[in-house]
């Protein structure tokens, strides 16, 4: 199952906004058992580590770390945010 992150905004920055986005993802996206949840960042201008940390923490807690995958992107804010979160 693929989640288009751009549906949640073009500039994604704060923890409260990340928490809201994660709640909405969990409420409206229903992956099949064992299916991977792919986060697609294409079309997003900027993501901050606070927003992304809230989203990834919530999704990983719900579906397990291995099932939540960030699709490859050239967006440097996503790349650097992921490094900051997973360091």
């Amino acid at each position: 199952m693929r989640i288009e992150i751009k549906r949640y905004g073009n500039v994604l920055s704060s923890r409260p906004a990340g928490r809201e986005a994660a709640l909405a993802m969990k409420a409206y996206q229903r992956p099949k058992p064992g299916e991977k949840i792919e986060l697609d960042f294409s079309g997003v201008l900027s993501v901050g580590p606070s927003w992304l940390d809230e989203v990834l923490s919530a999704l990983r807690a719900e579906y397990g770390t291995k099932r939540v995958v960030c699709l490859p992107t050239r967006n440097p804010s996503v790349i650097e945010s992921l490094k900051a979160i997973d360091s």
Partner: protein
Amino acid sequence: MKTNTRSEIVAFVRSAGGLRPIELAGKLGITPQALHRHLKALVASGDLEACGRGPKTRYVIAGEPALEAPRRWHAARGAPAESPASFVCETRDVFSARLGRLASLSKEGLGGAELSLLISAVGEIGNNCFDHNLGHWRNIPGCWFEAQSTGKRLWVLVADRGQGVFQSLSRALPEIPDERAALLTAFEKRVSGRAPENRGNGLKFVRKIVEGSPARGLACRSGAGLVDYGALGPDCRGHLTDFSSKASGTVTLLAWRLS
């Protein structure tokens, strides 16, 4: 050599942090035509720079951000006399909406990758104002958020009248000795004033971004503490030395070189 009138113009502009021609004419008591000649000469000599267009054109000191208004706002002991709604974001929603407007800086020569990182870094700093000061504002809530481009650089200022980094971090780390040590900890160690919540990587992220290119830098003041990072950090630091070391709260100035 500048004439007396031109020296006066530069002094007025420096003191005010930027003035419109109509404001300058009122102070100097000279005709608009004479003022226009002086301004044209001062721009040609590299002393002043015009920002904006038409009747909203303001003249500022070339290459330097105009920070007098936020400096006064931050330093005021009571509620600030002036708290312009165009710069002060009283809620996180207002800050978030204005953060998105930085996207228009692509017109100023900031490429997509640089813009993405700048917005991300500014977002972390601005959101910190709200994350760490809810219920602890000195009097008015929110942050002063302003972006200016001058001297081929983009300057972004985020200031708040909250409790400051030392006060915030001391809850989690009572052994922190002073305001400078608190700032260094905030930017260099993974710790948060909101412990035991698992957070505290935002400012480390910001530091890494500004240190990732010689075209970036920042300085941050919180009380008597003042730190800078990145190649343009010392320039930012120079502009924050005039900000009050007695006022609580935090001021961060970022600089990004424009192509």
